[in-house]
């Protein structure tokens, strides 16, 4: 049987202690704020303005038109410096000044004519910097770019589009990565702060010598656990609100239309992260150990949860590991709810996994916590 009075006593004490700890208090607000701005602006998977060189061996007006078209696509930005041969351009790429080279051959105009007659020779060549595959992929996508070039000998006919498919983008038509990143960022920041706060919660009492007194009182382990996580639920809600509000204001990330579903899955994830932290706290002997264990969970949560790389693209073993992380399930849930306006009733699979995390984690943490010193 749980005693609400004792849970309240623990809850109130945690709040008092938290309010004394100015740095932690500041972090509650600063972590989501700074991360959101950093990630939102810096992580941009839609690559734009890749610095590129143009080596025009034809010196034709058609080549200049092609360059202007490419520039207009915003994928590449041709640098001002002029390159007369491929070797000097390659040097500039090795030095990191540019990431791609467009080589336009001497017979460019003839190739253009050939192409209009149906003889499919490439018009020009891209040399890309493979050390960053993201950049390479961006250039690769230019292969399919429909060209509106006019050839010198066919003044009126426009070049047929070489693209085979038309791509229609649902949910995020402008393909802005902030839309994708902000909901994922909620998962990462909650994982970080929620686990970090509670992983220190029990071990701190032990380290600072409060535990011997505490376990000699009639407090029950479950009462202690519940009292300890309650304040952090409120903190989690504050952080999520900051992320959503700021994400909407700065990056026009849509606010969830399914409010109820959003807070339901978010609360479940907050609880799952808090119980995971508690579990760490009952196992760790020092706060440093608790911190290390938190990082141990945080890193795969960032890399494998689908926040950074698509889950489906990961190799099978990585997917299995990802399934063990609450963040993976929440990334799926929150993207579904925020970006695709899904209702919670359509997402029962991941929801029940999160519930499972909470029940198992809480049970294990309570069982781990012994009111004994031996």
């Amino acid at each position, binding site marked *: 049987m749980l*005693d609400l*009075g*004792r849970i*309240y*006593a*623990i809850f*109130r*004490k945690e709040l*008092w*202690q938290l309010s*004394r*700890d100015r740095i932690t208090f500041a972090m509650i607000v600063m972590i989501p704020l700074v991360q959101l701005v950093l990630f939102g602006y810096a992580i941009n998977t839609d690559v734009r303005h890749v610095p590129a060189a143009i080596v025009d061996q034809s010196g034709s007006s058609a080549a200049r038109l092609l360059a202007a078209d490419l520039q207009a696509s915003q994928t590449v930005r041709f640098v001002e410096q002029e390159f007369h041969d491929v070797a000097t351009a390659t040097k500039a790429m090795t030095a990191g000044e540019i990431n791609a080279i467009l080589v336009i051959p001497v017979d460019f105009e003839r190739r253009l004519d050939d192409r209009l007659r149906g003889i499919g020779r490439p018009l020009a060549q891209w040399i890309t910097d493979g050390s960053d595959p993201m950049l390479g992929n961006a250039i690769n996508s230019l292969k399919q770019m429909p060209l509106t070039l006019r050839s010198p000998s066919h003044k009126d006919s426009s070049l047929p589009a070489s693209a085979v498919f038309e791509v229609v983008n649902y949910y995020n038509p402008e393909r802005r990565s902030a839309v994708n990143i902000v909901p994922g960022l909620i998962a990462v920041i909650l994982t970080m702060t929620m686990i970090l706060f509670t992983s220190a919660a029990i071990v701190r009492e032990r380290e*600072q*010598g*409060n*535990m*011997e*007194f*505490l*376990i*000699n*009182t*009639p*407090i029950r382990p479950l009462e202690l656990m519940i009292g300890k996580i309650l304040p952090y639920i409120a903190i989690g809600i504050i952080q999520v609100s900051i992320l959503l509000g700021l994400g909407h204001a700065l990056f026009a990330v849509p606010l969830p239309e399914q409010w109820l579903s959003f807070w339901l899955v978010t609360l479940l994830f907050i609880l799952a992260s808090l119980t995971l932290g508690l579990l760490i706290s009952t196992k760790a002997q020092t706060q440093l150990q608790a911190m290390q264990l938190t990082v141990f969970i945080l890193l795969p949560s960032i890399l494998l949860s689908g926040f950074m790389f698509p889950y489906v693209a990961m190799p099978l073993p990585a997917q299995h590991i990802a399934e063990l992380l609450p963040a993976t399930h929440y990334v799926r849930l929150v993207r579904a709810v925020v970006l695709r306006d899904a209702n919670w009733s359509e997402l029962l699979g991941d929801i029940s996994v999160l519930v499972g995390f909470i029940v198992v984690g809480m049970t294990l943490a309570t069982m781990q916590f012994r*009111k*004994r*010193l*031996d």
Partner: protein
Amino acid sequence: MLAIEAQGMSRRFGDYLAVNAVDLAVPVGCIYGFLGPNGCGKSTSIRMLTGLLAPSAGQIRVLGLHLPEQAEALRQQIGYMTQKFSLYDNLTVLENLQFVAGIYRIKSKEQSMRIRELLALYQLEDKQKVRAGSLSGGQKQRLALAAATIHRPSLLFLDEPTSAVDPENRREFWERLFDLSDAGTTILVSTHYMDEAERCHRIAILERGEKRADGSPSELMTQMPADVYEISGPQLRQLRQQLLMLPEVMSAAQIGQRLRLLVYKKYGWRTEQLQRRLGAEYSCEAVRPSLEDVFVANTGEAYAGSRPHLRDIP
């Protein structure tokens, strides 16, 4: 009626026997002291008696409850003041007491009254908004006692409560303990201070995990197997060396200008015999044994002034 009963209470940590077959009988209302040097098993014994540690062997009954099985039922009835300050440094005096009152489920109406009463009793009224971390040693210890007694426990455990406290505060602290005892609380206190042990109704002398003696301080003094003499005269250091060679002498320790000598009773020495041996340049008189003498007589080798190499000679 007994508040604490233990038979053959033992505790082993790996190969190390921290407490070895200790029997205890602490009557209700008594102030009972554990006296012994550091590492003698005082804290381990207290932890077993509060249910924090399970004994490796032996029977323990505290307030009629079997330990460690019924430890949970005991919690509400006992108070425990740990050796190290174990309240929260970053909470104020008042918040600490409110927290502890909440944990012991003291009703909110009663709570503020009880806290006010404790603040007055332990002279912490003007400190209630001060964080516990910035209190002095004496204030911290009074706060810890207030927290340990907030739920009016019938049995109070104090593990070296005055180790970080000056003598003035120690006297004051003991006044409070006598008040509690007067109100019917049984108190078990561990200490390595002789003057503190002397205030207890009964004490148990512990050494290397074993109980060497127990009884009231005056009983222990009269039951001592040695007589106590004080000798004054020249060159006490050499005299001490010579005296320690005698099989009749249990121990000799210099205290200021005098030598305090413990002589086995079984040899039947009187002051005259000792005086004859010492010669005219020394004066000697029989004195009342102190608790320190009792301690030395019962623990032997662990204490200063003893002579380990001669201990086996009868």
